[in-house]
């Protein structure tokens, strides 16, 4: 039971990061029906910029509490990523807004490669160790002294994520900008006729997505303790899967999808090895029994298949419910 709770907590933590990144995908998709392939790279840049700031501040021995240093990292990363998001839209997506769907998708892939390799030139080819300046403190959740724990970093990630999601919801459903965004998402031409500056709204959507992504990048960096110029790719892919799982274009769906995917991944990684341990079937075959006598773990699929779960979820969702859990029916606009 303790293992289950532990994996659940890890999953929710991971899931909240996925949810924040998925929000970036889903907002952009909702408004201009474009998969912003380079969003994962924006997250990576956020992590990298924050890394530099944190290393610089911690290295200079600034008399600041650790939390303030991480916060400073995030505060620098946010505008940088917003600028990156803005530039992406302005340079690569806006000129292609009326082009066939294949065109912006291909530029997005190109941008993603460019951003990755620029980051590699600026930072490094090697994984960068994120400074662990925040002392990790574990709190026990059950009476068992060796049982499930939650760390202060995990609590912080959850709290920040929930706050950001709430803020975004308020922005989209309570402010004038939010109304303009939703109007643009429904029908750009009519929104334009109602006096909405469509270009500005779309640019702002990218900026907001970039800001969310940068915070997610800082959270991933602090949580895993590592930053790498290729970290955005897999993270972005998983977050996209989460957005599709929840119903792409739907904000609540992205959050739900992110959480679910995080939990599926953590539980999957935690249990798949045990579930596919062939030694459960040792009495079926003599040869197997002999092998199990030597090594009781003849595992068909171990936790090294963790990264496969997101894709399997993605494919299953697309086959059986392409609109996602909360999404409306997707119109077939080929």
């Amino acid at each position, binding site marked *: 039971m303790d293992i289950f709770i532990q994996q659940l907590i890890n999953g929710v933590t991971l899931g909240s990061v996925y949810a924040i990144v998925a929000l970036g995908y889903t907002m952009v998709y909702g408004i201009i029906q474009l998969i912003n392939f380079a969003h994962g790279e924006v997250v990576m840049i956020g992590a990298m910029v924050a890394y530099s700031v944190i290393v610089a501040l911690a290295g200079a021995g600034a008399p600041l509490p650790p939390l303030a240093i991480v916060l400073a990292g995030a505060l620098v990363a946010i505008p940088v990523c917003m600028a990156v998001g803005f530039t992406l839209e302005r340079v690569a997506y806006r000129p292609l807004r009326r082009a066939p769907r*294949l065109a912006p998708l291909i530029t997005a892939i190109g941008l993603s490669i460019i951003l990755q390799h620029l980051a590699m030139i600026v930072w490094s080819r090697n994984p960068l160790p994120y400074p662990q300046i925040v002392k990790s403190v574990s709190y026990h959740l059950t009476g068992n002294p060796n049982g499930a724990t939650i760390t202060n970093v995990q609590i912080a990630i959850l709290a920040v994520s929930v706050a950001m999601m709430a803020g975004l919801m308020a922005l989209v459903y309570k402010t004038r900008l939010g109304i303009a965004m939703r109007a643009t998402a429904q029908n750009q031409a009519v929104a334009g006729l109602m006096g909405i500056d469509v270009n500005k709204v779309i640019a702002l959507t990218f900026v907001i997505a970039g800001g969310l992504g940068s915070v997610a990048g800082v959270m991933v960096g602090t949580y895993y303790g590592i930053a790498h110029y290729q970290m955005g790719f897999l993270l972005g892919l998983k977050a996209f899967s989460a957005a599709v799982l929840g119903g792409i274009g739907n904000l609540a769906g992205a959050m739900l999808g992110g959480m679910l995917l995080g939990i599926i991944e953590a539980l999957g990684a935690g249990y798949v090895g045990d579930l596919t341990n062939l030694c459960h079937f040792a009495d079926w075959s003599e040869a197997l029994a002999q092998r199990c006598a030597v090594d009781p773990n003849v595992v068909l699929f171990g936790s090294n298949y963790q990264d496969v779960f997101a894709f399997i979820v993605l494919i299953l969702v697309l086959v059986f419910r392409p609109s996602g859990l909360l999404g409306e029916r997707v119109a077939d606009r080929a």
Partner: protein
Amino acid sequence: MRAILDTKGNPKLAWAGLALVGIALLVLPFALAAMGTAWVRITNLAILFVFLALGLNIVVGFAGLLDLGYIAFYAVGAYVYALLASPHFNIHLPFWVILPIGAAVACMFGVLLGAPTLKLRGDYLAIVTLGFGEIIRIFLNNLSQPVNITNGPQGVTLIDPFRIGPFSFRDTEAFLGLAFSGPIKYYYFLLVVLLAIIVINLRLQDSRIGRAWEAIREDEVAARAMGINTRNMKLLAFAMGASFGGIAGGMFSAIQGFISPESFILLESIMVLAMVVLGGMGNVWGVIVGALLLSFAPEVLRYTVEPVQQALFGRMLVEPEVIRMLLFGFALVLMMLFRPAGLLPSATRKRELEVRR
């Protein structure tokens, strides 16, 4: 190019031109070998990339289905060859048996991937194929436990070269006073296959199937209304593209003699896509040009970037490999922005990509 191929309009010039190109291609490996055998190897790999680009062109260029996991089929073909012709399982089948098997297995994977994704729109398809490519790579990396199938990240070594009886493609042989080294023999083999594949592609494009793909690409609903079985046609595109990839993979295995999952990462898929986009989606000659350009680019860069940087800054700031990747990225972006139909655009594709700007 057009004048050379126009055998009806100006037959004399056309045949003379074709003969010149043919002779140049036959002499090329010896000219390259004079510069170093490495250049022959590089040329062979470039031809393999032409195969891949032509295969992907069927899926992306002809049928308009964006496939970002194409390298997975290459990987499948390569692993089929490696497992059936190496000491790993101690199976040594001849290559003319394995290449068709590799093509068939890759084809099966193509259908396997195509079937659930047929209903999806273009951009979803891109993501699913991307995920599929990663799944294949993760499996290749991990299928060494509990039964060792792929030998994990270490890859498969000592893969047999092509061999016909006692005639092996790895040995050097003297013939007519010329030294035919292994890579040169492969070059001629690849050249013949390349010729066949080009003919297949050209014929395919103008066939009933090719026109059906074009119709699907331009408007799927209208294509269905015209009586085209869109599901089967799309599956066929996936299957054919995949089998081309599988064959190329098998040849890659034999030529390299060693493969590992490292050779089949996402960037390779994107590189092949960049070749197709740069050359001109849907145009066979354009795709060939694109593939050759981007295959030789890293070699050219290797010989220019380093000295230039040494001269300017006194040290290496950016490795050629990184510049190559940046070049791919910029090629994709700039091509889409300024010349979306590619360097040598196909006529219909050009109309389609440029009309709505």
